[in-house]
């Protein structure tokens, strides 16, 4: 397995308050990596650092061995895409126009480099995320799930090698959560896009990730296969919950939090 995205000694401070310290992370090409951890552990900050949206106070993020700060913004946007939480677009933006913004990195000197390729990429992204039928609808008329898929299509239109997602299923009902996770899996399996996602649902990490990194106490406490890393003991140590273990239909162990441990 070759490493595509990595961080070493990564640190970030907000003013004088350290948020992350000496973070080491290794993402293999073609992998789905889930970042989990309690609220306030710095998951979103880590994702922003990995995307080059925040400047680390120490260490570096490397894309195939090259410091991302040395890759130009536009060149980086063609290889690495990120969907932050709570992105909004003007209410009257149509889905097709929104997805078209994903082609912004492929414009140079104020013009499109290859309009045909742009259209193909937009069509592909809408097809993968099942929003083709919605392409003329305005974002204000979409449900939460449809909206999330439209934004997912926008970042997929970037045709990235690595896709970073910040809690992609937040605020969605169970069916839409499942749909989004299936789309992410399809993008990964069929098109080889490496996925790094912050997840708040431990069971999603068990079901949909190839690797999981646990962020705790400003650093990555553990990284490994989900079934090796996630255990009742980890949930007690990291999240402070006592969880009951169940076996799902595919034989995986999943967890239901039952009680708070004494803190």
């Amino acid at each position, binding site marked *: 397995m070759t490493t595509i995205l990595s961080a070493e000694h990564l640190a970030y401070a907000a003013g004088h308050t350290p948020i992350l310290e000496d973070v080491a992370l290794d993402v293999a090409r073609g992998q789905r990596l889930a970042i989990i951890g309690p609220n306030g552990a710095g998951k979103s900050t880590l994702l*922003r650092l990995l*995307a*080059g*949206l925040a400047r680390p106070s120490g260490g570096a993020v490397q894309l195939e061995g090259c410091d991302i700060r040395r890759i130009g*913004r*536009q*060149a*980086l*946007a*063609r290889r690495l*895409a*990120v969907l*932050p939480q709570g*992105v*909004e*677009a*003007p*209410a*009257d*933006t149509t889905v*097709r*126009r929104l997805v*078209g*913004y*994903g082609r*912004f*990195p492929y*414009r140079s000197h*104020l013009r499109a480099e290859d309009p045909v390729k742009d259209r193909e990429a937009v069509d592909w992204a809408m097809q993968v995320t099942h929003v083709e039928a919605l392409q*003329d609808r305005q974002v204000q008329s979409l449900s939460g799930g449809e909206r999330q898929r439209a934004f997912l299509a926008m*970042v997929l239109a*970037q045709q990235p090698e690595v896709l970073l997602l910040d809690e992609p299923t937040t605020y969605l009902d169970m069916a839409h959560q499942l749909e989004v996770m299936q789309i992410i899996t399809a993008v990964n399996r069929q098109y080889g896009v490496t996925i790094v996602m912050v997840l708040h649902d431990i069971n999603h990490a068990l079901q949909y990730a190839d690797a999981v990194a646990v962020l705790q106490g400003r650093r990555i406490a553990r990284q490994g296969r989900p079934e090796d890393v996630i255990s009742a003991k980890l949930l007690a140590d990291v999240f402070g919950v006592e969880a009951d273990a169940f076996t799902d239909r595919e034989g995986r162990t999943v967890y239901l939090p039952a009680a708070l441990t004494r803190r």
Partner: protein
Amino acid sequence: MMRGASSGRLAAVFLIFLVLAASGVLVSLMMGSVAIAPQEAAAILMGADGSTHAQILWNIRLPRTLVAALVGIDLALSGAILQAIMKNPLADPHIIGISSGAGLMGILVLLLFPEHSALITPAAFVGAMGAAVLIYLLAWKNGIQPIRIILAGVAVSAFLGSGISALMILYSDRVHNALMWMVGGLSARSWPHVAMLWPYTLVGFALAVLAARHLNVLQLGDAMARSLGMRVELTRLLLTAVAAILAASAVSVVGLLGFVGLIVPHMARLLVGSDHRILLPASALLGAAVLLYSDTFARVAFAPVELPVGIIMAALGAPFFLFLLRRQL
């Protein structure tokens, strides 16, 4: 990528805007202390005779009409750009103090180097840009927040405005028609003013339309724009410069005319939507139309007294500002 019914509707709206602007030109040419019939106006424009009407049309009405249209375009575009890059529905070159910066520097050149009138607009641009940077610096705190921009702008505007007032009073012998200039008016604007305006309007319009996609992507927020490969700070700085060029050229010719840049982009947005590739040209047309009609009204309504058009714009604009304030913040 417009399609189907919506592109038909857009074409219709554009046609209406075009008709509004064209009829605004016509009305502005015809109406005034001397009424000139449309056929006569057309005849004069085709081949000028030496009549009094021809004199009025060529030397007074036509240049003033062109100045009104150009200033309307400039201020509308400047407001549309500022609203987009400051993520602020209330941004307008006048409200946030960019016009005051332009005015202060323009007046300074006017007073100190009255023989170099070509320097007025460049100086006004420097003032406008300075004011804009000052507003950013004052309002910046973990990113841009709409309400802080407005408050910083009000402060900057008051500060620079006091400088303008002081200059006007200290040099009242040298500043003609100061009151007209303070509220913004088109009185006695003529061909030299057209010549001062049109190159800036042309360049500003071209740059604005070229940057329309950037403005669109900026609406997704700084983080998303950055992750789509935009150099956000640089883009915002360059677009601020374009807005400052447009505002400065308008201020240099008509003074501190407010609210055009606030009202027009909102009206246009309601009718054509938020895609800047369409919104900017629509705002330009509508800006020309609004100022042409307002100025004609200001000239004719209280004849023989002529009101500065700035009074009309403020009377329309201030309630509109309050309406936006209640709805959006």
